[in-house]
């Protein structure tokens, strides 16, 4: 990316800072407040555990830094509302990271819906099933420790629904508009006090019904959406190439296909700052996602 430069990194982890150093970042901080005080920083990417979003985002806004914030916007509605209102008051651009919105496959589907070639979408089925925090291939196929905060519902705001469901709720809201009503079944295969899988049924103002199926229970990842319209059907998925193709891409110095939407997302955010336009998905957008999730938690389907 030529239009922006990463000039500073803050993290409490020495390992993370060393990694940033290896990549040529010279200003490294263990306290993010010090980073935020740097005068020549226009924007920050906040990628912290969910419960830490509110304080960090507000500190950044008060230092007049534009923000690309990791999803979900916050663990609790009131924290999300606070972030959005403070950003609005200080006229700071706030974007929330939903990379699926920057995946070519999902953008194509949006165009198809808008063009009318699918007709009226009656039913959609969105899936985001993976290992969630219980993943093991972070570094060289060696099992990685799950950070403690993932096991604490107060810190995460919930389980698979808030973590993975926020992606799919945002995507379906982008496609079909606002949610009128939502209910959800919550599953607890792994015996924690947060759900490791959930099936949401959302009715949209447009009349579309979406089944949103999310889970942390599988070693295999699937992120996809199926749309059934009155004229035609369509399907989109976001996935990695095989290990062989990935290895060849890496050797050729290309980017890992799975991460291209993430790079597109950051490029778009930088473009919004340079061109002084409001980013989407915005903070308000992410807050609406969180409200849908909160409503789903309040309306469980019991068997």
């Amino acid at each position, binding site marked *: 990316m030529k239009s922006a430069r990463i000039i500073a990194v803050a993290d409490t982890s020495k390992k993370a800072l060393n990694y940033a150093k*290896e*990549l040529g970042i010279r200003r490294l901080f263990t306290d993010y407040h010090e980073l935020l005080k740097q005068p020549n920083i226009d924007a920050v990417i906040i990628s912290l555990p969910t419960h830490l979003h509110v304080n960090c985002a507000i500190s950044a806004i008060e230092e007049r830094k534009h923000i690309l914030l990791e999803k979900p916007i916050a663990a609790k509605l009131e924290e999300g509302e606070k972030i959005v209102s403070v950003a609005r008051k200080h006229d700071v651009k706030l974007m929330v990271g939903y990379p699926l919105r920057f995946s070519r496959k999902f953008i194509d589907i949006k165009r198809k819906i808008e063009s009318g070639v699918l007709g009226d979408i009656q039913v959609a089925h969105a899936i985001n099933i993976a290992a969630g925090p*219980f993943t*093991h291939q972070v*570094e*060289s*196929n*060696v*099992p*990685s*420790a*799950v950070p403690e905060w993932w*096991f604490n519902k107060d810190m995460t705001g919930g389980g698979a629904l808030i973590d993975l469901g926020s992606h799919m709720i945002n995507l379906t809201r982008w496609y079909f508009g606002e949610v009128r009503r939502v209910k959800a079944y919550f599953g607890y*295969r*792994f*015996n*924690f006090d947060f759900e490791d899988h959930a099936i949401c049924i959302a009715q949209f103002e447009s009349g579309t019904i979406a089944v949103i199926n999310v889970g942390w229970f599988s*070693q295999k990842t699937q992120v996809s959406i199926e749309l059934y319209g009155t004229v035609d059907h369509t399907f989109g998925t976001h996935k990695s190439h095989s*290990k*062989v193709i990935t*290895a060849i891409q*890496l*050797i050729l*110095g*290309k*980017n*890992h296909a799975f*991460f291209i939407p993430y790079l597109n997302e950051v490029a778009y955010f930088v473009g919004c700052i340079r061109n002084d336009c409001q980013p989407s998905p915005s903070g308000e957008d992410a807050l609406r996602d969180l409200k849908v999730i909160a409503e789903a938690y309040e309306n469980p389907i019991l068997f």
Partner: protein
Amino acid sequence: MSLVGLVECKTRNVDSIKRAIGEAFRLIDYPLPKAEKIVIKPNMCYYWDWSTGQTTDPVFVAALISLFREEISPNVKISIVESDASAMKCKYAFKYLGYEKLAKDCDVNLVNLSTVETEKATVKVMDEVFEFMVPKIIMDADLCVNVPKMKYMSFTKISAALKNIYGCNPYPKKFEYHSKLDDVIVALNKVMPFNLHVLDGLTVCGSKTLRLGLVMASQDPVALDAAAATVMSINPKSVAHLKLAEREGLGKIKFTAKGADFDYFRRRFPQKSLSEGAIAFGYRVACKLGLDKRLI
């Protein structure tokens, strides 16, 4: 030569598994001894539940507990033990893998070996002296039962009975031992010799996960591992920690299999193909060369 008992168990319920385990004990001529305190060490390597074939099925352990209560005494005190590891914490693994529920249902204790009283022990393997903290609960038990899985493992070729005892080391930063894993596995088995080894091969993880329906038992961990390696189509003599364990007197690689048809399980086990091995090797090399950092 040591005896290894093989029994097929097609159904995943306590009664069927209990019958299969009892039959395996009969095949190896193992009468259950009198005991007041029993320690059971399942395999809980990470947050992968029984259905993946990576960790011991709590239903398998429930069957074992039921058998001990029937055959030894209804009042026998049973503890299920595991220790914290670099990437796994017992307090979450017990819950995630279904052991908290099992402990409640079967009235047994769950013990995190990283938090209990220990005693220092030294042990010599080849010319090197190792020092470990040994949990007192293992030293004080009348019967120690190892309930491993059978898996491929990049560092040690296979993981079965001997490797499972590695998890009895209370020290949580286990990755520090990876450079001399074979020696450490053997050393830990020398300081904590288990009486009985019962392998849960109901669901196994090879090149893919499969319901194999195998129960194996032996008093000799080396023989059991040699049998497991053979089922996985690995020459036991090519497994460094097995050769070392035999040299250190922990058991015999040569075994006598009794019971179900050994070749039947070997044919069904999902063996790693040459291409899968090559891909995994290439991927590891790419990561080692830092090519994964090109993601950024």
